């Protein structure tokens, strides 16, 4: 393969593996690049070798004609520190969103964002996965409210109990 072409192919495969965030099959890569599967596989093998030799911060794990880009295992400990930071940032954001929904809810995503001043799509999705909020359909809109599970965690029975508690505090 010509040097120029090879560099171009490598760059695209790198972009694909990076952006995908999950395993992609050699077949899929071959189709996108209009090369054959064998060539896709060779490219990936070559890249694996390069990453290791250059001691890069990521690797390519391949299995069953699929490849996935991952971070380098030797940096796992540092990454766990990063995840700790993330954990406290996420907890903080979750508590804020839950507070607003508990006292002002039910709210649409836009209403919640207006109060918090930041985009809330990810946090709403995660709070739903955690079962800490419910989405209630009202016409075309979805309004979010804290869940029964959340109230249980606080040891109270209803949102009204919560809201009456704090209304005096806010006015």
């Amino acid at each position, binding site marked *: 393969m010509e040097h120029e072409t090879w560099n171009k192919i490598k760059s695209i495969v790198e972009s694909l593996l990076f952006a995908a965030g999950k395993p992609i099959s050699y077949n899929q890569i071959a189709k996108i690049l209009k090369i054959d599967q064998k060539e896709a596989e060779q490219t990936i093998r070559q890249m694996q070798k390069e990453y290791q030799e250059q001691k890069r911060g990521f690797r390519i794990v391949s299995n069953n004609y699929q490849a996935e880009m991952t971070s380098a295992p030797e940096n796992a400990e540092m990454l766990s520190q990063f995840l700790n930071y993330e954990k406290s940032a996420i907890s903080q954001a979750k508590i804020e969103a839950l507070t607003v929904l508990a006292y002002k809810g039910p709210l649409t995503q836009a209403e919640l964002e207006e109060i918090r001043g930041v985009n809330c799509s990810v946090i709403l999705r995660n709070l739903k996965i955690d079962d800490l909020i419910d989405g209630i359909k009202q016409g075309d809109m979805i309004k979010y409210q804290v869940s029964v599970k959340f109230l249980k965690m606080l040891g*109270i029975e209803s949102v009204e109990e919560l809201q009456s508690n704090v209304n005096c505090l806010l006015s």
Partner: protein
Amino acid sequence: MNLQISLQQFQGPLDLLLTLIQKQELDISKISLSQVADQYLKFINENKHIPFNKLLDFLAIASQLIILKTRALLPYLSDDAEEESEDNLIIKLQNYQLYLNLAKKLQNRLENQQSISFSRLSKSINFRLDESSITLPLLQKTAARLLTQKVKPMPITALKKIFNIQEKLKQINDYLKQKEKFLFSELVGRTSSKIEIIISFLALLELSKAGVVFISQKEMFEEITIMKHGT
């Protein structure tokens, strides 16, 4: 001239001014500003439903235009501070025009270009909240921090009708039907609004230019006398 424009088309007063100037194929200058000042004021007059917060922005520029126009009519009324503020307005407009051009380029780039950098589509990291970390006191503290910022109510009363130049002109005309000669202080009456005084004055200048009235003042800061032309 029918402007056929509405507020929705404009991002703000600078945008409106620029459009008016460009429609007449003029450059940005004091002369062109004083030429489009009337149209600008007329526009504000005709758009009664400009939201209050926007109206303030439009009025800020309007008052500058009124002063500028007054000075164009009466060039000897010169004041360094005012001249500086006119220069500032011109620089502001020139810069604004530049930004508009840049914005168009960026818009084009966003719409047509093929170069975009993508994030990694990894599953977003999620952590379950530690159940014991959620307590009522924490919630109350967070609520107090997040939910108590109050929005200041806007003083909507003041600026409602100030800006009606046409109304002022009509008022002066009515006045002239009753009296052939009157003082400027009679005309403004008890108003303490600077903008209204300026508007009254501008309206007078308009009438004077049109040959309807004759204005005289014995000395600086003396009372201005207005007479119906031909008396």
